[in-house]
């Protein structure tokens, strides 16, 4: 009798890339829904559009590179990249910006570097930064959170804005768009207003930007679920949010009129989404436990530095890309001590 031979281990494997990515997607759902709740249909349209573009670009690139299409498309990593991109851009982003951003992410940041597993930078963030730099105006056109908006866009109206660039009659961009809380603080601080004045506006909620607090809370829930399901480890989120809270807390204590509170920093921008879903991207991040702490802490500090003193109100994307560059070096210097490699410890 002949048998099939394989090498050990022979136990059926417990995980797959597809499963890991699927769980990341599940975890994104609550935050995404919350975001759509506050910012309207545009969020969902963006997600759908970005995911479609990502899948198409992925398939085309795989064919061009003569790689098997099915296993790679079904690994869902492109879906995750597209989805994250969609969450980073304003809800009424024109379709061609999404096309360019996601296309750039998949084609250049991912496949030109060798595809899944080989990209040194997080593709979604590369795509996002590319459009932020190229189309600065469009990228600041956020809507005010729904509870504050004068009107809510219907789905057809949303589609019309995104795909045809046509606002409903009687509206202009200036009338409907606003800044993100971080933007607003940065601009108004530049006009020498004090933080307590700025935050007195109804635009801000209890601890951070109205609406944003809730959105971030739901992303937090999804992130914690990922840790609980052992899809990600706690190291990066804890280090990143910890260092961001620490450094913002420090400056806030020094001068609360100029520096926003730690809670504001955690719950107003992309810190939580970044900490749990983007900085934890295994491919472009650090892989050793110690390295992940260093990596996360680096992202937190850089994000703060960019937000507080840099040219952009939001620093998470840039911080992640900067730390991506450091990841190989960090890994090199944080190798765990190999079992039995130091003089044996004595009993006790």
């Amino acid at each position, binding site marked *: 009798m*002949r048998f099939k031979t*394989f090498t050990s281990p022979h*136990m059926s494997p417990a995980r797959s890339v597809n499963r890991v990515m699927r769980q990341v997607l599940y975890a994104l759902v609550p935050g995404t829904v919350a975001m759509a709740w506050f910012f309207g249909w545009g969020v969902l349209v963006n997600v759908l559009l970005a995911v479609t573009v990502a899948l198409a670009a992925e398939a085309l690139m795989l064919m061009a590179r003569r790689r098997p299409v099915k296993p790679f498309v079904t690994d869902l990593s492109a879906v995750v990249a597209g989805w994250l991109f969609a969450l980073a851009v304003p809800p009424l982003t024109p379709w061609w910006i999404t096309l360019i951003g996601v296309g750039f992410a998949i084609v250049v940041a991912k496949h030109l570097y060798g595809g899944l597993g080989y990209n040194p930078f997080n593709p979604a963030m590369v795509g996002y930064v590319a459009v932020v730099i190229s189309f600065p105006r469009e990228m600041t056109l956020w809507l005010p959170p729904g509870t504050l908006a004068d009107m809510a866009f219907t789905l057809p109206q949303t589609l019309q804005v995104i795909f045809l660039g046509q606002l409903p009659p009687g509206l202009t961009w200036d009338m409907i768009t606003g800044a993100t809380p971080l933007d607003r603080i940065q601009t108004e601080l530049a006009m020498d207003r004090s933080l307590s004045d700025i935050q007195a506006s109804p635009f801000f909620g209890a601890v951070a930007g109205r609406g944003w607090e809730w959105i971030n809370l739901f992303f937090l829930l999804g992130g914690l679920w990922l840790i609980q399901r052992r899809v990600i480890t706690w190291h990066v989120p804890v280090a990143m949010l910890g260092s961001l809270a620490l450094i913002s807390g420090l400056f806030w204590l020094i001068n609360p009129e100029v520096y926003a509170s730690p809670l504001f920093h955690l719950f107003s921008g992309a810190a939580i989404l970044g900490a749990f879903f983007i900085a934890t991207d295994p491919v472009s991040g650090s892989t050793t436990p110690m390295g992940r702490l260093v990596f996360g802490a680096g992202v937190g500090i850089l994000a703060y530095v960019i937000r507080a003193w840099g040219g952009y109100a939001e620093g998470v994307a840039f911080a992640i890309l900067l730390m991506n560059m450091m990841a190989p070096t960090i890994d090199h210097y944080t190798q765990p001590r190999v*079992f*039995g490699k130091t*003089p044996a410890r004595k009993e006790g």
Partner: protein
Amino acid sequence: MTSTPHKLWRFNGGLKLPDHKAESTQETVFKAPLAEYLTLPLRQHIGEMAQPVVKAGDKVYKGQIIARCDTYVGAHIHAPTSGRVRGIEEHPVPHPSGLTAPCVVIEVDGDEDWGEHRMPPIEDLQNLDPARLRHRVREGGLVGMGGAAFPSAVKLNPRPQQAIDTLVVNGAECEPYITCDDMLMRTRADAVIQGLLLVKRTLQPRQCLIGIEDNKPEALRAMTEALGGEENDNIRIVALPSIYPAGGERQLIRVLTGREVPSEGLPADVGVVCHNVGTLANIYRAVIRGEPLISRIVTVTGSGVKRPRNLRVPFGTPISHLVAHAGGYSDDVERLIMGGPMMGFALASDQVPIVKGTNCILAARGEEVDPPGPVMPCIRCGECVRVCPANLLPQQLYWFTRARDFDKAQDYSLFDCIECGCCAHVCPSNIPLVQFYRFAKNEIWSQEREKQEADAARVRHEMRQERLAREKREKAERMNRKKQALNDKPAEDKAADTGNDPKKAAIQAALERAQAKKAAQGADTTPPDQGKPPSDTRTQEKTR
């Protein structure tokens, strides 16, 4: 009886696996009937191959030595039963490559006749001296029963500078499916304890720790009963949490004592000797009953056999014979594994024999061991890092191995990998990581071997050059002498003729000088350093 619980330490990583132990522990150990032929490979342990001392046609008795291995790391092979030697033949042996190797094939006569070959039981146990015990273990061909098959006598002989204070007994049996140690402890706990007492007398450790995973409550109970309590006479039974690979020697020592065996060292370096429960029972058998190692308990299990159970089998029994006594294969059996599902290797055929190191035969159906899906690129998720009990960075090892950068792989401690398979099991990209590490290790070994062969070839070349030069020199000398002899006579004549012409004499002298110089030059081409004799390099290779 119970005192404070024993403190346990942790090792990094490891896995909680479905243990699949229940399948094969429904029935007690069954003594398998003899097969028609027994096929005994000459190499069944780590170390040198044994040399056969029988030939085709010889009658052999049960327990008779049929192949000797007298090197320090070696174990004899005994006839598992009586019969006639059919021959010493190449036969497929249990090896991942499906290789054949020389085996003694015995045609079984069914008499189970020991003849004069049972070793005399040692009676005066109280005064059993260490050398005598070691000798008995060596004569009995005992090797470790945990799978690696390391000759047991060596472990009873620590060097004087290694003060052994702890004897660790491995009853962990952490691989899923395997239950032969479990069943042994359940049924022969007293043999294990008696064997332990013998070893304890020899090594004089301060403490003995018996580690058993807590998924074997019956074994724990039986052992406790045999010991007369959880702790007795500095021997202690410790229930361990079931975390694969807690039964790895280094991991077990860590868990029980907190000590880390140095990367390039042995347990003895931290004052520990570790024996498997099966080995202890065999030591007891060898001393009390005078039986050499000729059979063992093997777990035959998996959904691919109809009646999973543990069988006591003589070595050399073909696996097919064993499977027949485990109810035969189920219809859709796909894979046959020798050893456990994590570290065992898949066999292409069931026509290979059970050897000393065989603890388990796992016949699996498709759904039990799903052939892994397509291999995807490493996404650097670090799952492998999280579970690696050796604290390695498996994804980096994989990366370097793929790039054939073996130096880097060694820098990242490739040789500390115990091939436990944890990393591959959790890898979401389905990468057969362990296969890559084995490949890398083999490449490095073969590169080293090639280098040694190249060195040997260089030495051979130099030897040849020297020989050629010497031959040339000798030839020149011979020619010289002949010429001299020829020259001498005419010279005398000429001298007489020419009346001592000084010019001619000078020319003659110059010619002779030139010739001598030439000859000397010929000799000079001999390399000044004659290199090592080849026999040297051979011994070097041997001692490696």
